[in-house]
């Protein structure tokens, strides 16, 4: 499936609509959690780019997320930058580090890459502790929170939520541009068949590194945003399980769907909490069962569920223009030679 | 007497059927050829008969209805198949390939005897018994695949394009082996082939499959003379 067309599908419309309606429906504390979900969603977008569109599994996404968060915090604390202004830097710095991690990926295959990157994720909290002169060690770093300007009518949470949505919108927009362009085509060729792609003269190195750079930039942006939202970060927030959670979010949502990234993010932010609400002692147990049952039912992720597909069909009815652009036989020609 | 009766067999991949109600019979002790163009569904028939694909329709083998039988049970009943392409286990040695071919045989003595027998028949395999079968040449692999299938003492041996990628001389050799298996041991053979000319000289009966349907059938000698068959498959 084509990445750009996926975005126009029904799950995307649904996710956008829900995201815009939330401020009117959800209380402030929920809004905060949704903002957190949005920043995970941005990181998951990055993971999807790697996994769904170029077929590489990176389990260091949580660490990259952490690097973005620490970039924002350090730039704010040590250099006095405005937190929001640090976000592009967080993305760029993380992107550079991501490319470094991506370099070995040029030679590693799926499973090996997954395990090596998971090692990176496991070492990350230790590294943070070790570099305590800049990261603050166990105590972590506290950052300024960007306060809502006076003219803003809503609450502080709403302001932060808006900020998150803007970041998400920018990410989606950039990603779409990327996937539509030449690099996107390269990456898809890479996923579908690296050997053939290479023999056709696709520059594998370039495509893979581009995928890593873009994916890490998104993780960094998400992480920076996470830092701003929380106002405080410590190594405790970036344990290896975070990378696993992000992977779970990506796959549960559906790895080739942008809307799925945000659905998956909501899943990993809320479902563990709910299962603990059901029964504090059995929370993890229910969450584990949820994951298993979920994937046994929705093998392509939530965004790939029949409901999603039928909504997509509905979307097609309302969006006639789109239909005529779909390649393939016209209805009258079906079956005829 | 028919050892295999297939009636109205339908099978395919996913939602679409490749075979549309195929019916044919294989007589005990005969060599039957199954001819057809690429993509006609020959391999699909064999896969369905071995139980690798779900199918509909009647398949009766030696008086047993195969529909309830698992693939493993079918082998136990005496149905063996040499699949298309490399039918060997590449990271096994030659000897291990033969041993696994005799998986359904319980008598150690019989396995040993059979192994010696096929080593005598295929001296090249005997020389290479400790070698990884993945490193054998194409022809040697085909022989190994054949020997492996024979280790299960089949009543009906189905071969999917045994001549694929082999030199004419080796192909001929393999067909000679088929002939002697049939003649000396009374084994029934169902051979899928592209090399129609050669196959029809060896076979007793032949069927032509076109797009999932049997279109021509009859004694092999008749088919050799059939104009339509000549045009499509014999390149006359």
């Amino acid at each position, binding site marked *: 499936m084509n990445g750009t067309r996926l975005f126009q599908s029904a799950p995307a419309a649904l996710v956008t609509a829900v995201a815009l309606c939330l401020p009117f429906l959800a209380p402030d504390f929920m809004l905060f959690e949704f903002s957190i979900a949005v920043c995970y969603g941005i990181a998951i977008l990055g993971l999807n780019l790697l*996994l769904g569109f170029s077929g590489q*599994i990176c389990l260091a996404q949580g660490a990259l997320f952490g690097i973005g968060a620490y970039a924002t915090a350090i730039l704010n604390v040590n250099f006095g930058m405005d937190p929001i202004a640090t976000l592009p830097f967080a993305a760029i710095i993380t992107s550079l580090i991501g490319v470094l991690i991506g370099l*070995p990926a040029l*030679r590693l*295959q*799926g*499973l*090996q890459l997954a*395990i*090596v990157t998971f*090692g*990176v994720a*496991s*070492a990350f909290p*230790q*590294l943070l*502790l*070790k570099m305590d002169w800049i990261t603050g060690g166990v105590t972590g770093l506290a950052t300024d929170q960007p306060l809502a300007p006076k003219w803003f009518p809503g609450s502080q949470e709403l302001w932060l939520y808006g900020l998150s949505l803007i970041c998400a919108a920018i990410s989606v927009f950039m990603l779409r541009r990327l996937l539509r362009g030449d690099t996107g085509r390269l990456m898809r060729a890479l996923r579908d068949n690296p050997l053939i792609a290479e023999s056709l003269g696709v520059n594998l190195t370039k495509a893979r590194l581009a995928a890593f750079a873009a994916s890490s930039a998104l993780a960094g942006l998400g992480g920076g945003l996470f830092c701003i939202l929380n106002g405080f970060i410590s190594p405790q927030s970036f344990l*290896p399980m975070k990378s*696993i959670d992000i*992977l*779970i979010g990506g*796959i*549960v949502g559906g*790895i080739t769907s942008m809307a799925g990234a945000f659905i998956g993010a909501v899943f990993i932010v809320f479902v563990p909490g709910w299962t603990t609400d059901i029964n504090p002692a*059995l929370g*993890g*147990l229910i*969450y*584990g*069962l*949820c*994951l*298993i049952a979920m*994937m*046994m039912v929705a*093998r*392509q992720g939530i965004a790939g569920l029949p409901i999603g597909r039928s909504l997509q069909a509905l979307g097609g009815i309302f969006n006639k223009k789109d239909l005529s652009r779909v390649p393939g036989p016209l209805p009258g020609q079906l079956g005829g030679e | 007497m028919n050892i295999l009766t297939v009636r109205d067999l339908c099978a395919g991949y996913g939602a679409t059927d490749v075979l549309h109600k195929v019916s044919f019979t294989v007589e005990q002790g005969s060599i039957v050829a199954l001819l057809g163009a690429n993509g006609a569904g020959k391999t699909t028939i064999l896969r369905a008969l*071995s*139980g*690798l694909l779900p199918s509909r329709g009647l398949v009766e083998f030696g008086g047993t209805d195969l529909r309830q039988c*698992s*693939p*493993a049970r079918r*082998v*136990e009943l005496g149905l063996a*198949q040499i*699949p298309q392409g490399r*039918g*060997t*286990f*590449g*990271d*096994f040695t030659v000897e*291990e390939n033969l*041993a*696994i071919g005799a*998986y*359904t045989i319980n008598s150690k003595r019989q396995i040993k005897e059979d192994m010696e027998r096929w080593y005598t028949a295929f001296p090249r395999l005997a020389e290479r018994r400790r070698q990884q079968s993945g490193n054998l040449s194409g022809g040697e692999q085909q022989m190994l695949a054949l020997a492996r299938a024979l280790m*299960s003492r089949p009543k009906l041996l189905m071969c999917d394009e045994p001549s694929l990628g082999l030199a004419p001389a080796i192909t001929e050799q393999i067909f000679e082996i088929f002939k002697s298996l049939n003649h000396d041991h009374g084994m029934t053979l169902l051979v899928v082939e592209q090399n129609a000319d050669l196959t029809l000289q060896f076979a007793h009966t032949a069927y032509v499959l076109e797009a999932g349907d049997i279109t021509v059938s009859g004694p092999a000698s008749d088919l050799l003379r059939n104009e339509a068959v000549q045009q499509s498959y014999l390149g006359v």
Partner: protein
Amino acid sequence: MVLFFQLLIDGLASGAIYASLALALVLIFRATRIVNFGQGEMATLSAYCAWQLCEWGLPVALSFLIVGAASFLLGVFVFRAVIKPVSKAPVETIVVITLGLFVFFQSLCLWLWRADQRAFPAMFPSGGWDILGVRVTASALCILLVLLCLAATMGAIFRFTRLGLAMRASAYSSEKSLLVGIRVERMLMLGWGFAATIGFIAAVLVGPRLFLSPTMMLPILLYALASATLGGWDSPLGALVGGLIVGVAESLGATFLPFIGADLRVVIPIAVTLVILLVRPVGLFGSSTVVKV
């Protein structure tokens, strides 16, 4: 020099533990091309059960025997209930499912036995020998011995028995195996069962060194993953050698590389794995058939 040999011995002993869990992972991977992220936690559950039986007064050996068999059944059950239904699903789906197993079994232990650490019954004789100043403990020796027996048994089963041959065949190609009359699904099931038992053995080896806790196998899982990767995912021998390499590298590196030290020791297996993969992309003993996840 004495320190070096001391670290070498210690490293081999921990390496043996990584190797045994890696063996379990590789066994499953060979058979079903799945990496079972839940393997370590399933082993933890088994270890807890063994501990519980001992607490209730059963002799240690008997309870280990019972739990070894029960672990086998657990592996079989997990395969039948969870893995078989999704055998045709995309790999990502299966990854999440095994991660789900991980979460599930960890929480199960947490729920049943709480988070407090428990002392695992000591199985190996205490004491040891001083050889030229290097202390060789009896338990380290026993751990290595157990691993060697395990590896030898597995090797013999795979090479010389019909069952082992059939399991290898199923791992090589399910279709060709069906054609020679092997009940492939049963073999895969057995593979999961054996893997669970081997995982239990790994947990038994760790138990006395650490305390029992629901998360005790987590670091071991990471090391075992690294071992399997550097050894080559489809090679039991690779898992064995890989585990020992990782163990030794970790023990030596943590002491001799000052900037790494004890806190960053987790970096070492990854670095070693990376270096080996850069030299030999399929791992030390892997064959090139392993393509994607």
